[in-house]
């Protein structure tokens, strides 16, 4: 049942209540991503950082396939448990495992077989490919583990045990942070050490999740009867997961394109710099996502209850929080970009390039905060197509042409500037779009 307080309680209090857990989860995720980069940058060197940055799209594609199964299955299970349809819910669980194993195997095997051409296509050079390959081979041998861990963790979360799912995440994050320096510095395994640490941390995370799902006291648990492949379940979960999958794949191709432009105009170090700046940007974007996730139920409910003034109020408040958060990132990038990037590298040249990249990339950040909130608002009040358009506009539609044209005049700086330029234009579009939506609220009936 929808908590009716969504329609009555003070907006500020509601936002705090709904956003806080999301923000914690988001921070954990982005820290997880940062840790590998930091240890590799500090322990292995600047070319390794570039090699790592080249692999991001491949990891994203693997994640995309994970969400293709995971999102749908989690949605279905939460639905079925709500209906107390335990038999089918457990069948979905069995099918999640089977689909993850199959897809994980296929994606992993194809990546391993075609590793070199893939990495070349993603922007690897003679200098960076050995690092990228060394790292990615280990990650892809562990691909099934990664898929199962994320997939089943989502299942645990949607089965009404978000805390247990969070413990698994934290366990993997902390373990990775401990194992990374151990393998890189103590065992002297180089970039491969970081990959081994990542996979091992996920093995432990997976073991925890499997243990949770073996608990016979909960209605959802492993048993002999659930291992029957069911086309209907597969089709249903895949169709739910298709949208996030395609968005992931799209964003991955954008990163490939960016990497290739960077390589062409700025060489390997530029790719490494992008990897570093991106990690920092990502942290703030994730915080922002935490706020928007908190906003969604509040805006959605009040829109459904036709309390449009409350919709506008929660939108304004969330936008304010988002813009403030992103402004912190903006200030860091403008005042002390060197200090921020020195977390990832001590190579003077890479530091210079990264600091320059960070300053340019984050120059429109306060606007990005607003743009993301608008996109999410459109989505949760039912303007699905507009939400997709806005999301694509910033990360694809405006970005790609800029990425092609700007470097012709500005060289490598053109690649960096295409990002804030796209941020700016897509924010203007978002501003006018949401203004017309909000003005129309309640007037068309």
């Amino acid at each position, binding site marked *: *049942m929808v908590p*009716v307080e969504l329609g009555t309680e003070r907006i500020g209090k509601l936002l705090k209540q709904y956003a806080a857990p999301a923000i914690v989860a988001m921070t954990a995720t982005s820290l997880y991503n940062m840790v590998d980069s930091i240890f590799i940058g500090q322990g292995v060197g600047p070319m390794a950082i570039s090699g790592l940055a080249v692999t991001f799209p491949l990891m994203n594609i693997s994640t995309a396939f994970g969400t293709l199964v995971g999102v749908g299955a989690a949605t279905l299970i939460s639905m079925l448990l709500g209906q107390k349809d335990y038999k089918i819910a457990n069948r979905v669980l069995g099918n999640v495992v089977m689909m993850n194993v199959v897809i994980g195997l296929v994606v992993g095997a194809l990546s391993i077989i075609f590793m070199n051409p893939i990495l070349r296509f993603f922007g690897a050079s003679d200098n960076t490919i050995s690092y990228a390959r060394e790292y990615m081979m280990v990650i892809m041998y562990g691909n099934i583990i990664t898929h199962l861990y994320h997939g089943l963790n989502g299942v645990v979360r949607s089965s009404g045990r978000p805390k247990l799912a969070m413990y698994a995440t934290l366990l993997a994050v902390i373990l990775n942070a401990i194992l990374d320096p151990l393998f890189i510095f103590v065992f002297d395994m180089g970039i491969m050490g970081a990959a081994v640490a990542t996979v091992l941390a996920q093995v432990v995370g997976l073991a925890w999740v499997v243990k949770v799902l073996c608990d016979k006291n909960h209605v959802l648990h492993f048993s002999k009867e659930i291992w029957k492949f069911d086309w209907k379940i597969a089709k249903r979960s895949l169709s739910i997961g298709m949208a996030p999958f395609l968005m992931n794949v799209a964003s991955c191709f954008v990163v490939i394109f960016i990497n290739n432009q960077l390589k062409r105009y700025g060489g390997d170090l530029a790719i490494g710099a992008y990897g570093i700046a991106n990690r920092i940007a990502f942290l703030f974007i994730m915080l922002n*996502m935490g706020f928007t996730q908190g906003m969604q139920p509040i805006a959605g*409910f009040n829109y459904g209850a036709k309390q449009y003034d409350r919709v506008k109020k929660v939108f304004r408040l969330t936008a304010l929080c988002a813009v403030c958060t992103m402004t912190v990132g903006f200030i860091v990038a403008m005042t002390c970009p060197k200090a921020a990037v020195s977390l990832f590298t001590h190579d003077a040249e890479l530091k210079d390039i990264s600091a320059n990249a960070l300053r340019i990339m984050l120059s429109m950040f306060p606007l990005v905060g607003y743009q993301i909130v608008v996109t999410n608002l459109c989505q949760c009040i039912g303007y699905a197509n507009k939400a997709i358009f806005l999301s694509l506009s910033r990360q694809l539609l405006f970005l790609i042409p800029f990425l092609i044209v700007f470097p012709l005049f500005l060289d490598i700086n053109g690649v960096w500037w295409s990002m804030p330029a796209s941020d700016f234009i897509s924010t203007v579009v978002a501003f006018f779009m949401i203004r017309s939506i909000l003005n129309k609220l309640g007037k068309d009936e």
Partner: protein
Amino acid sequence: MSNILITIGRQIGSGGLEIASKVAEKLGIELYDKNLLNLTAKGSGLSADVLEKKDEKPVPANRFAKFLGLRGSNYTDPQFYSAGSVLSEDELFKIQSSVIEQLADEASGVFVGRCADYILRGRDGLLTFFLTADMPDRVARIASKRGITEEEAEKFIQIEERKRKEYYGYYTFKEWGDSSSYDICLNTSRIGVDAAADLIISLYHQIYG
């Protein structure tokens, strides 16, 4: 004694609503049809207009969104799907389900459509029906009810029924209109509306005494 719970699934134009209201009237119990929307609205604080737009329809309506499988979940932040917005179809189905369960707890009733047979499955005192009728009868009934031509009526039936079928299949994992999904299936063209209502009541009494 447990509450009398009768659910009636129906092909469009099979006279399902008419029969259901006769059954409810003769047994002196509540009829839940479109009014479920108002009850859901009251129970959840959401507006009835918003609910009506999504009533018994498999959303997303447009082809693009359907291809993407958009159901109001968090698709713009792919890595971090949330439980979905309150307005998502799945969320509304959950709300309506809990309203239907609550109504069934409180009193006897005849429930028309809205997957009630699935939502209430396994309860004492439940009997599930599915009503069909021959196509010409259905077309004639819809044409006169909505004041449209027979061709329009036929088209209307096809379009609306596909939505109903998808909606039911999506939420119940069963086949809409398939005899194995229900306790009893009746063709109202054979037996007529009044006889169907009487038959439902007498079957109910035979089974539950």
